[in-house]
Every structure is written in structure tokens, then in C-alpha cells.
């Protein structure tokens, strides 16, 4: 039994082996981009919105509102980043219902890549917002003694994000595979339903946590932000 789709090599392009993780990532990217292009190709002010455009507007505005609840003054770049995170993870997890499809998020490499992207995005957004000096000051707050702990906190954030998403998605896939061998006609359906639910929840949690990390780096530290560890326990 293969636990990671990284080990499944599908084909080669110019001598580069393409595994299932990368291939299915491209599938998800193609689905998201294709759907967006189809809906927004004739998007003009004089054309009344149809149901598909309205659906995309609801999704985008929903993401925007969630970000605005966390970050007081979010930039569009934060929407691009966090929204793409959510849509990619959610689409990957929802495509689990397609037979033969392996979610890229069940790969530790994918979750690591997403976590690294968040870990790298936090200082980038922080420096963009506060400047490099202002951002580095956050590591010695509230006192210089907290510098090592803050540095450790930055890395543990990435690790926690990686393991949480990977564990939930991979475990669901593994449990479904095990139950498929035990009760092939009943449990896989139930587990797929649970997988859809947990997949959406994980996409939401991953995105929210990433937004919290970025917004904490872009806004001044406040006493109320002590609630962040509680969210991290999700």
C-alpha cells in the first residue's frame, strides 16, 4: 500500500519524472483556471451577471469577508494568496469523490510546500506592510528575551500547518483504503462523505490560520492577539 502519491510515477517529460502529486496538482489548477476563464471570459459591465458569475462572486466575496474579519485592512495580495490557498485545498479535497483521483493534499510534499509558502509569505507581507525594521522588531517583542521563542514559533507554525493538513487528508485516504478492503460496498461511501466534510474544514482552517499569521505580521501587536494559540489548536 502506497501512502504518498509522490511515489507513484505517471510519466516523464524531457526526462523529468512526473509523479501523481504533481499531475493531480496540474489537474486541480486546470480545473480552477478553466472554470474561471469560462465564467469570466465575457465579463463586461454591460452584460448582466449569470448564475456562474454570481457563484464565483459569492465565493470570492465570501473569502474576502472572512479575511476582513481577521485582517482590519487587507490588501488584494492577501486575498490572492489566501484565496488561492483555500480554493486549491478545497478543490483538491472535493475532487476526492472522483474515482482514481488522488488529492495532492494527501502528499506531505504538497502540504510542506503550502506551509513553506505561508512561512515565506508572513515575512514578505510583514516587510511590505511595516518595512524590514518594523518587521524584525516583532521578534524582540515584548522583550529581547523572546527572540529565540519567536524564531522557533515561526518554524513550528509551518510544521504544524504541514502536519495538520497532511494528517487529516492522508489519514482519510488511508482509512478509506483500509475500509475498502474490509467492507467494500458501504464504508468507502461514508468515509468519502466524511472526507469531503473534513477536507472543506481543513481548507478553511489552513486558510484562516495563514491569514491570521500574515495579519499578525502586518498589524501592530495587540493584547487581544493572545487568542491566536487557541485558533492554532484547530
Amino acid at each position: 500500500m502506497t501512502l504518498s502519491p509522490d511515489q507513484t510515477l505517471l510519466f516523464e517529460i524531457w526526462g523529468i519524472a512526473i509523479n501523481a502529486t504533481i499531475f493531480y496538482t496540474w489537474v486541480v489548477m486546470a480545473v480552477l483556471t478553466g472554470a474561471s476563464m469560462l465564467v469570466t471570459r465575457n465579463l463586461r459591465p454591460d452584460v448582466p451577471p449569470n448564475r456562474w458569475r454570481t457563484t464565483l462572486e459569492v465565493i470570492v466575496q465570501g473569502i474576502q469577508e472572512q479575511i476582513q474579519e481577521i485582517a482590519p485592512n487587507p490588501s488584494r495580495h492577501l486575498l490572492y494568496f489566501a484565496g488561492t490557498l483555500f480554493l486549491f485545498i478545497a478543490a483538491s479535497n472535493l475532487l476526492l469523490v472522483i474515482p482514481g483521483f488522488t488529492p495532492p493534499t494527501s502528499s506531505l510534499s504538497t502540504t510542506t510546500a503550502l506551509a513553506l509558502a505561508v512561512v515565506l509569505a508572513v515575512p514578505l507581507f510583514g516587510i511590505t506592510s511595516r518595512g524590514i525594521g518594523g518587521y524584525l522588531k516583532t521578534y524582540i517583542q515584548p522583550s529581547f528575551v523572546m527572540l529565540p521563542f519567536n524564531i522557533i514559533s515561526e518554524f513550528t507554525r509551518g510544521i504544524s500547518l504541514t502536519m495538520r493538513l497532511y494528517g487529516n487528508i492522508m489519514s482519510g485516504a488511508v482509512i478509506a483504503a483500509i475500509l475498502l478492503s474490509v467492507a467494500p460496498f458501504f464504508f468507502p461511501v461514508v468515509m468519502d462523505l466524511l472526507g469531503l466534510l473534513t477536507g472543506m474544514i481543513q481548507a478553511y482552517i489552513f486558510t484562516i490560520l495563514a491569514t491570521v499569521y500574515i495579519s499578525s505580521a502586518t498589524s501592530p501587536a495587540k493584547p487581544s492577539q493572545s487568542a491566536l494559540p487557541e485558533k492554532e489548536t484547530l
Partner: protein
Amino acid sequence: MSIDWITVAAQIGNFLVLIWLLKRFLYRPILDGIDARESEITQRMQAAVVAKEQAAEAEADFREQLSDLRFRQSEMTDSAQQQAEAQRDSLLAEAHQRLERERQDWAIHLDEERAKYIAKLHKAGAGALLSLTRKALCDLADQNLETQMAHHLVTQITPMAADLHRAAGSCNAALVTSHAALTPAAQEIVTTGLQQQFPGIAVEYATDAAQAPGLELRLGGAELAWTVDSYVDDLAALIEEQLAAGADLKAQPHEI
């Protein structure tokens, strides 16, 4: 459970590409569309507010015009009513004047007709009276009226001869006029009678159609008349009395 760092790098690249693709084909068109729609809605709402203000101004202007029109209408109605009343009073006064004038004309006409009728009646009555008298005198007494009138004239002047001499003075001619020509016998009687009282007097005879039947004698400043005027006047008074009684009887039903 292992991490393939090549796959990690590829996935980071894929994720960055996906961010760019979704920014290009999803976020920017959708958000720009939303912004454009919000801007359009804002513009429309502002236009609606402006249109509402204009409508309110137009409504106020219209109400003011309506009030002005109602006031003018009321004024015109009052003026027309006053003119109508004045014209009605004028027409009524004119009608009253015309009726009064017609009534006066009618009264004058009635008086004229009445006078004409009375004159005609007087003339006809005189003629009828004379004719009946002559016929009755002829049938009952076998006498001629003119002859008897001549005898009567002679009889009447005898007692007043002294007065006639004074009135006549130096006049030595007498004029006897009658409605119709006297018979020669009657002229002889009169001439004889006058010459007995006034010797040598010349007597002339003349007829006057306007004169009442009878005889008139003019002698110097004296003038004597024996005509049927008084009888005809009595007859006319009697007839008028009867006519007045008949008019009262006709007027009574209208008064009721």
C-alpha cells in the same frame, strides 16, 4: 511518510503559478466587475436622488401652478358670475322697460281706438237717432222732421227776440247751417219766422257735414243750436257704462 523536496519545489512553483492564474482569470475580473457594478449602482442611486429632487421640485412647481390656476379659476368664476348677474339685471330692466313701453303704447292705442270707437259710435248713434226719430215722426205723426225743426226754431227764437236784437246789433244777415240740406218748405218756415222778428233780414242756408244733425243759427254775435248732440252724448255715456260693466266682468276671472 517522506518529503520529496523536488516535489515540494515543484508544488511551490505550481502554487505561485496558480496564484498568478487565479489573479489573472478570477480575482481581478470578478473584483473589478463588482467594483464597476458598485460604481454603476452608486451613480444610478445618485442619479435617482437627483431625479427625486428634480421630481420634488417639479411637484412643488406643479402644486404652485395648480394653486395659482385654482385661484384664477375662482376669480374668473366670480367675475363671470358677477357679469352674468349684471347682464341678467340689465336684461330684466330692459325687458321691464320694454314691457312698460309696450304697455303704455298699448294703453295709448286703446285710448285712440276707444276715442275712434266713441267718435264712430257718436256719429253712428247720431245718425241712427236722427233716422229713427224721422221715421217715428213720419210713421206716427205724419210729420217731416226738418219742417218740425224749422217750426221749433221759430218758436224758440220768439221769446228771446230782444236778446237776439242786442246780440245782432247792426247785422242784417242770418246764417242757418244744418247737417243736411233743408227742404224748401223748411227754409220758407225759417225765413218767414226770422223776418217776422227781424224785418228785412237776409237768411242764408248752408250745410256742414261735420255738424251734428239739427239746426244752428248765427246772427251777428249770437249763435243758437238745436242739435242731437246732447242725446247722442247720453247714448254714448250709456253705452260706455255698459262696456265698462262688460270689461269688469271679463277681468274678474283673471283676478281670481
